[in-house]
């Protein structure tokens, strides 16, 4: 804001990028140095450092694109950047909380900022709708979360994760109040990660929100939700009580099927990404379900692979949307002829998302299947395998539009920052796909 007063808007984005890079470095300094902060509300561990690093990286990429994305809206760029960084702060809280209150704070910091951003195209009714819908549904979910936390507190007399865990292990039969609380917390978390049947907001909000925010939601917000859920299940709930496991099992099946089957019928790129995000949530729920066999590295790898593929896809989609004025799949028609480099980038992103080698998405799926199999989730893995076949079809719809359809007249402008993001993300996806130990060995 100070910058605004001094009329230095031009420098906001570079400064924020540099700031984030510095924080990224500071974050890495905590590696292998577990500590707790704020009266044991936050616990820094390798898990939280790795995920926070990923969160900062995603924000950095989004900011690089934001400079270009908001060129026509420079008056408000400081607001956008500030809110984006708020979201990151919330996400980082969700990745390192030790205490349910801190988790709630993180979720709220992230969500409230996101409601504002989803509706930030003031004169666009769809964006208003998205913001409003997200706000209504999200605050409802927050209320449920709070109710759940209260019930858990009522039985444990503490918000602290380790005390909840020892409460579970000390009591052979858990009081119904506690179980209800846990399930309610579960509902709210599943809403945040858009798992079926709590997913209905996602396609509308993804479609209505400005495309850059959609990119942010589909990567960082989802990953933060899963990091929080994983932390909750592993540290707080002793790797899952039978009740939560049953719930997650059913939800995972539903999510996989809903996400993939609905994605087949989409003709809007953002809705397609929303449903593909739902199906990825299904895969990631499998990781949470196999929490007993120490899968934090799998979750991290999968998240990172998913993030870079998603960012690469949006780095191509954003300039295409801008130049064609359309967000339908038909906007990509003939991109292979108009701009072969962008088309190649999007193709690689889609192949990565579909989980085909040599990209990181493939290894993510492979680790996931292996770990889930190891935990005895035989049938659901088979279902996930079948779902990844379905996934290929809709990812290839984009590829087919780019190469198979005739191009129209519009020229695609592709500014440097988008190109940069595309190259960086594709290179990372390829690098992590060829040398997966770069990431997987971090959290062993």
């Amino acid at each position: 804001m100070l910058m605004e007063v001094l009329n230095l808007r031009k420098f906001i984005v570079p400064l924020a990028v540099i700031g984030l890079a510095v924080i990224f470095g500071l974050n890495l300094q905590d590696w292998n140095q577990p500590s707790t902060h704020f009266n044991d509300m936050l616990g820094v561990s390798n898990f939280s450092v790795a995920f926070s690093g990923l969160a900062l990286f995603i924000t950095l990429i989004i900011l690089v694109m934001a400079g270009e994305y908001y060129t026509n809206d420079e008056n408000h760029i400081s607001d956008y950047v500030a809110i984006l960084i708020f979201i990151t702060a919330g996400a980082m809280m969700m990745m390192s909380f030790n205490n349910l209150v801190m988790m709630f704070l993180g979720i709220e910091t992230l969500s409230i900022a996101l409601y504002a951003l989803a509706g930030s195209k003031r004169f666009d009714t769809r964006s208003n709708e998205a913001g409003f819908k997200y706000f209504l549904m999200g605050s409802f979910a927050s209320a449920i979360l709070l109710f759940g936390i209260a019930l858990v507190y009522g039985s444990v007399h503490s918000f602290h994760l380790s005390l909840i865990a020892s409460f579970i292990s000390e009591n052979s039969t858990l009081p119904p109040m506690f179980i209800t609380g846990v399930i309610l917390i579960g509902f709210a978390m599943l809403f945040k990660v858009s798992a079926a049947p709590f997913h209905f907001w996602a396609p509308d909000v993804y479609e209505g929100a400005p495309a850059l925010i959609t990119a942010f939601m589909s990567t960082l917000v989802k990953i933060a939700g899963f990091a929080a859920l994983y932390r909750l299940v592993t540290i707080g709930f002793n790797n899952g009580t039978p009740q939560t496991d049953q719930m997650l099992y059913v939800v995972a099946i539903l999510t996989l099927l809903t996400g993939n089957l609905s994605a087949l019928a989409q003709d809007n790129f953002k809705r397609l990404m929303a449903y593909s995000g739902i199906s990825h949530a299904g895969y990631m729920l499998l990781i949470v379900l196999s929490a007993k066999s120490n899968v934090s590295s799998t979750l991290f790898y999968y998240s990172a692979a998913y993030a870079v593929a998603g960012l690469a896809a949006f780095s191509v989609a954003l300039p295409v949307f801008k130049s064609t004025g359309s967000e339908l799949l038909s906007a990509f028609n003939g991109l292979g002829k108009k701009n072969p480099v962008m088309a190649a980038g999007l193709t690689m992103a889609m192949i990565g998302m579909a989980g085909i080698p040599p990209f990181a998405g493939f290894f993510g799926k492979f680790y996931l299947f292996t770990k889930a199999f190891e935990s005895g989730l035989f049938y659901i893995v088979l279902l996930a395998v079948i779902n990844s076949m379905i996934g290929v079809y809709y990812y290839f719809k984009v590829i087919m539009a780019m190469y198979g359809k005739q191009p129209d007249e519009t020229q695609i402008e592709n500014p440097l920052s988008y190109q940069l993001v595309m190259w960086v993300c594709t290179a990372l996806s390829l690098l992590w796909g060829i040398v997966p130990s770069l990431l997987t060995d971090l959290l062993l």
Partner: protein
Amino acid sequence: MLSLELLFIPLFASLLILFAKGKAARALALVFTLIQLLVTGYAYTIYKANGGAAFEFTQAWVKSPVINIHFGVDGISLLMVMLTNLLLPLIVLSGFNREAKRPHIFYALMLFMQFALNGVFLSMDAFVYYIFWELALIPIYFIAFNWGDENRAKVTIKFFIYTLVGSLLMLFGFVFLYLSSPQHSLDWNTLTQFKTCSCNQTWLFWLLFAAFAIKIPIFPFHTWQPDTYKSAPTQGTMLLSGIMLKMGTYSLIKWLLPIVPDGFKEWQAVVITLSVIGIVYASIIAIMQTDLKRLFAYSSIAHVGLIAAGVFSFTQQGLQGSLAQMFAHGINVVGLFFCADIILSRTGTLQISNLGGIRNQNRLFSSLFLIVVLGSVALPLTNGFIGEFLLLYGVFEYNTWLSVFAGLTIILGAVYMLRMFQNVMSGPDSEHISSFPPLHWNEKLVLILIGGLIILTGVFPAPILELTQPAIDNLLK
């Protein structure tokens, strides 16, 4: 270390060609495929056929789950590597008088395909093998999709999804094997020594077999094949039919048989029967075909059906024959599709009824085409003969009646191939064939080389049989 060179020459070439322009792209492609052929030839000369793996390369890759990069060849895989690297220069050369749009991408994809195919045949770790198996799918998808005919969008996505369904089931099977193997490894040596209980092999067999059966394709998994062959550009069809389907038949011998031997024996009868049904079915459909490319596609289903039946007869002759026939079929089918392409480029049609009288116009083409046709109907002294003979012998040892039906392939094959030849080449002059321009130098060269190979390996099949003998003896132990 030689296996690494075999892998990285095409990969390097593929990246290099991406930056070449126009005609330089195909010239570069030819140069690199020839270099690759020389390296393969060198590998053949120094390879000692003793049943074990040669040119091994091992390198730890991922710590958890344990994955090692492991390359190496035995006689069976070396034969396939030779086939791949022998056909690639021919396929590249066959495009020398054709104008492909964006040739640098086309040939880069083709060389990338060669890289992936070599990788499939060289891999000794199931996981690495799987990665190459999938990698091979991507370039051929784009070749068929970007350079195919007007039906390509529908056809290629069907092909892609169909084959991917198979591979994902295979991956599922490999994950299971990985977790149940005591050392937690997917190395070929581990997998073949450790045997999971036959209760699991029953269904594991189908998981792995599905991937191979779709790729080969074995009846009733073949429905993607004729359309894809028809609509892919000719060079793509050559890659698909000449080399890529051999990935499936090769994997039956190299991966399926030694890893799930009990499952293999349990389902042997079912698969042989399916294969024989496929042979007869595809032959009959081939007789009905009016389109040259579709006819060759169905004849290919019949031939690979016989190869699969030979593998599943699980006899020395059957296995030997299948390998000899894979090598022969690769050469013949590339020749057939090339001849179809020559005819199409000159007459503008592939409808058999519209063709006729080409022999009067062009004697040389007619004679060369005849050699290819005779090779594929397995006339003695051509390369098809020794393979089909051994295959039928193998099936005969397994079951007399099945071999009778399988033997129909030779009769029916002669019917549709010779009838086609008669209608297309001799017969009365059709109005479509007012003139048949002479062959280009590259067309002549490719056809003469293919004809030469057909006769050469038909007269001297011993080197092929000797190469694979020790590895097959190992399998049968």
